[in-house]
């Protein structure tokens, strides 16, 4: 759960301390409710975790190109065809919905985005 704008993977993360406000921000982005007590706890936990991850900065990565894929695969596509075998019926699609109405999922009213 590293934050793109705060941390860059190629910058050393030495002495990174997580504050409760960092926790609040991440919890907000992840849409997870967190109590004050939990926030304090998580801040300490995250700081410890990051220290462990920080061990990575001891590795010499000179000349190693950054990557985001390790499979070595490229150009995996599908043809433009309808696959009827995987389509859910309306009933199946809605089965795990907490609230449904006339074929729709229902949520509390949101503003137009």
């Amino acid at each position, binding site marked *: 759960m590293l934050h793109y704008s705060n941390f860059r993977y190629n910058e050393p993360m030495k002495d990174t301390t997580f504050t409760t406000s960092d926790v609040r921000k991440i919890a907000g*982005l992840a849409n997870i409710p967190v109590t004050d007590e939990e926030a304090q706890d998580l801040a300490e936990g995250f700081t410890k975790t990051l220290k462990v991850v920080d061990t990575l900065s001891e590795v010499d990565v000179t000349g190693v190109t950054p990557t985001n894929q390790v499979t070595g695969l490229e150009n*995996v596509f599908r043809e433009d065809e309808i696959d009827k075998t995987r*389509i859910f019926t309306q009933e199946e699609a809605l089965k795990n919905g907490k609230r449904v109405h006339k074929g729709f999922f229902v949520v509390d009213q949101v503003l137009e985005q």
Partner: protein
Amino acid sequence: MNTYEPVIGLEIHVELKTKSGMFCGCPADHFAKEPNTATCPVCLGLPGALPVPNKKAVEWTIMLGLALGSEISEVSKFDRKHYFYPDLPKGYQISQYDQPLCRGGMIATSFGDVRIHRVHLEEDTGKLQHATVDGKKVTLVDFNRSGVPLVEIVTEADIKSSEQAKEFLKKLHQIVRFLGISDADMEKGSMRLEPNISLRKAGEKGLPNYKVEVKNINSFRFAAMAIEYEIKRHALLLDNGTTPTQETRGWDEAKNATVSQRTKEEAADYRYFPEPDIPPMRFTGAYIENIRTHMPQLPDAYKAEVKAKYGLNDNQANVLSEDFGKMKLFSGTVSLPAVQEATISGPAVANWIINKVPDASSVSPAHVAEQIIQSKQVTHVDDSVLIAAIDAVLSENPKAVADYKAGKEQSKMFLYGTVLKRLAGKGDKQKVMDLLTGKL
């Protein structure tokens, strides 16, 4: 009162008309379907589902880039864009961040060039409807549209007026339609417009320190009206020494005004990262050239062709190019032997179709030819009139023709009678019979 210069950019979303989804095999046609009847584990974002990009959607996006003069990326990838909203089942949208399929490009308008910033591919979201259920205000969610291939075109802020924005949008719309990659039907929402507007003092360079986005507009006219409205609103604020708030607004059709939708307290934090489930894409020059070779004719090329080949003027070429039905009717009519024999000119055919055919889908080229020829020859009935009438009757009565060919002799008399009726007593009856027999 200061003089200001509008600085306008556009973001346009176009739904591709592929058969299947962007990353799954669900049907992409979601219009007027029962809600939530075209979903699968992938487009509902169920755990463990594996998205696989639609090859055609990628090809079509590259083709659009080529048509706009963009540079096609040699390496491109998909990224996850995270945000929470009920139209997004996964909590993120698969989009493209730092390696879009296409960069750059340009559409020329009569007010100046509008540069394209980038063209990228993503998945559409579900559709939301507001309703009251059991006395409670709720939002209904239909995921049929979620996962439909969606192309986003972003321009540079080169646009200086609502007229220029409108001309740009019309040209883009036409290019998309000529390429055959989308219906670009504004009413169905398969083309959605988002202008962003700000003002700077006349003579100043650089971008203003604020920007107002107007979201999800579904007509060229409303886009132009929203831009006009914002220009006036910003000028008033700036005259009073206030910088307009950076925000997203919506167009309210009833009020003919834009309304504030939500003020972003902080910059949206989408936490983009590379989609780990989709390997990167790499395109060879040969692959891209092959797409270029198979690209359909573009509007400008079509207009140049009908002007050179048939002597149409700018206006005729423009009007035809805006209506596929009329384009087809024109090419069908000018190539009929009857029209060529009667030496009816291209501009005459074009004028007839533009001025006298309200609905191009309801008439055949033969019918148009016949009408034009008849209108030209009031007194003398030329063979071409007879041939045109026969052609029209034959094309309108395929069953009678087939019956005759299957040996039913009366069908010929039926066709003969229909031709005479159409000629309204004009012409040599024996000649009509001879020509008809010859045609059959």
